[in-house]
């Protein structure tokens, strides 16, 4: 990659973060431009957190929670999914684009899936370009 990008990943402790950890243990390579934020539960992610991430310079944001039906906190991942959908609508209306934010579900042993998630977000940013909030300086 020629240009550094910034991708923020909100990962729940039990599955999202655990799968990222396992990816590291297995020496799976993925972009170093991801900043992982570890949370007890993906349900803790608020619309405000995602919007703030974009204001602080994120090109894309993803939320990695437990598989549906298997949330360590029962339905925190369902809550997160709804908030991500709502945030997509807000970002579309603002003009940043709803495709820059996404919700994923992983299990703690799905290291390959975590790598896939990061690769997916990286390729999205490469395709649609950096966040429109970033000013191009000569």
């Amino acid at each position, binding site marked *: 990659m020629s240009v550094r990008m910034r991708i923020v990943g909100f990962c729940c402790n039990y599955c999202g973060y655990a799968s990222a950890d396992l990816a590291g243990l297995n020496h799976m390579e993925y972009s170093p431009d991801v900043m992982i934020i570890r949370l007890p539960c993906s349900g803790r992610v608020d619309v*405000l957190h995602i*919007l703030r991430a*974009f*204001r602080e310079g994120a090109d894309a944001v993803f939320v990695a929670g437990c598989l549906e039906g298997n949330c360590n906190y029962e339905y925190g991942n369902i809550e997160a999914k709804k908030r991500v959908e709502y945030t997509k609508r807000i970002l579309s209306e*603002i*003009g*940043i684009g709803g495709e820059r934010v996404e919700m994923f579900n992983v299990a703690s042993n799905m290291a390959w899936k975590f790598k896939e998630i990061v690769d997916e977000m990286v390729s999205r940013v490469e395709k649609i370009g950096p966040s429109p*909030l970033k000013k191009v300086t000569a």
Partner: protein
Amino acid sequence: MIIAEQKPLKEIIKNLEGHRKILVAGCRSCVAICLAGGEKEVGIIAESLRLYSDMHDHLWEVDEITVERQCEKEWVKEIKKIVEGKDAILSMACGVGAQVMQEIYPDIRVVPGLNTSNMGAPEEQGIWREKCAGCGDCVLHLTGGICPIARCSKSLLNGPCGGSQNGRCEVNPETTPCAWDQIYHSLKRLGKLELMEQIIPPKNWITSHSGGPRRIVKQEAILTAEEKAAKGGLE
């Protein structure tokens, strides 16, 4: 409670064009309960506006505050320090709150952030339904507690129209039950079916909005000049 919903973000942004120092003012009462203008929604709207401003070099300065009730002057006056210096207030209260806000701060433009809809109650989380039309002459004692003015699509007073079928309203069978079907079952359950044989005369709409903006006076509650002085200017 008053039921309202947020205006589309594009519309809010359009209404705020030309301003720079914006205060997003929420209300902790009815609109917080219908998830339209409480603290959380204020935070999200404010952050969305900041994002939009950053993207388009609008240089908006967006502050936020949530008032206990925007429909009462005392609560609105309490945020005077925060309001000073702003050139627009985005009111996330109902239409009443937005007007009181404008009344108290006449030199700052107040922009509504919500579309106020009706007087109703939550049916379940995320769904609200109108229950009262504020007609000013209540007949709930004759209809088993179900308002025919607000809950009948045609506001009929003496039984259902010919179009209602299977207990559903013909105007919108999927979402609206027939009010008179519900009234019948309610009166039957209460053992008061004879009330349905009582003919309700044509409604006097003067107590409703047809008489113009309404005013209610409770003489014994009005403060005398001495009482006002003793209460230190409280209105």
